[in-house]
């Protein structure tokens, strides 16, 4: 069933974008409504997962374009999820819980345009070309925004690291 197979992935995409659990739930519901309405248009020659995730991503980007998230602040990252992540495997030394929490919160400090490109590139792992196509931006603009976003995040997070070490 579609909900069993894809609800987690879709919900997490929405959560990464919105930064709010409540909003992510609403977005996930909107995406599934859209999905059930579009099943008739699905081309059986295509990879279903890729098709569904593209539909979800496009919906999130459309919502982003409507500046919906300019008004909202990101919640603190869900502690339960972080606790569970400890079982996922050995953690990288520089990607500890505090780093994740800090970087999650630091995304708030970016402008919506830069935040969207950083999320698509570094969390959802899209190529620069895909981001440019999805956001309707020149490739150079996307690369420049990702670089600026990473620099801003690095500057926000760097003093904290200095104290830790």
């Amino acid at each position, binding site marked *: 069933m579609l909900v069993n197979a894809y609800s987690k992935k879709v919900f997490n995409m929405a959560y990464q974008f919105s930064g709010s659990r409540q909003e992510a739930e609403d977005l996930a519901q909107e995406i599934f409504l859209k999905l059930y309405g579009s099943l008739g248009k699905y081309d059986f020659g295509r990879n279903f997962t890729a098709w569904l995730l593209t539909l979800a991503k496009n919906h999130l980007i459309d919502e982003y374009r409507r500046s919906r998230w300019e008004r909202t602040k990101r919640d603190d990252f869900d502690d339960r999820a972080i606790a569970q992540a400890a079982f996922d495997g050995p953690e990288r030394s520089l990607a500890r819980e505090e780093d*994740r929490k800090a970087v999650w919160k630091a995304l708030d400090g970016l402008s919506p345009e830069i935040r969207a490109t950083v999320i698509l590139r570094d*969390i959802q792992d899209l190529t620069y070309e895909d981001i440019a196509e999805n956001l309707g931006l020149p490739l150079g603009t996307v690369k420049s925004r990702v670089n600026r976003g990473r620099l801003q995040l690095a500057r926000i997070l760097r003093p904290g690291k200095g104290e830790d070490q």
Partner: protein
Amino acid sequence: MSGSHAEEMLSAYLEGELDGARKAEVETHLAHCPECASLLEAMRDTRDALGALPELEPSPDLLRRLYAIPDRKRRFQPIRDFLLRPSLQPVFAGTTGLLVFLSFLAFSPGGRSLQKSLNRQVHAGYGRIERLYVKAGSIPEEIGARKESILGSLRSVDILRKDRE
């Protein structure tokens, strides 16, 4: 190479996108600029932390809402299918045209004068019919009143007598 110029290339350097000459240029700068070197390190940490964000579990309430969507869709599907039948399209087109015409009559200033003239024509036609009806109703009375004179005229030309013979 200046610090700001090196900063513009840090993402590309991090992702191994620079050609040999530029890469060497950045590395030379990094070797002599602790500020840019620490920024690069922080960027790498930030990127790793973003990529290592764990996935959350969707709440039971969201799952319930998502499972309910197909039922809702199924309930309205027959109505939707009926309304979207291609054979109904001319009907919708005709109705839309009629509604546009009626709204034009009802709301536009030009339409109001058209409506008045239409009303006048209808009333004039109706009045004409009424007058004809009244005239038609008075014909038997007129015939009764003029019966004697008509019969006298007929007798004088001997038409009735010949008929009797």
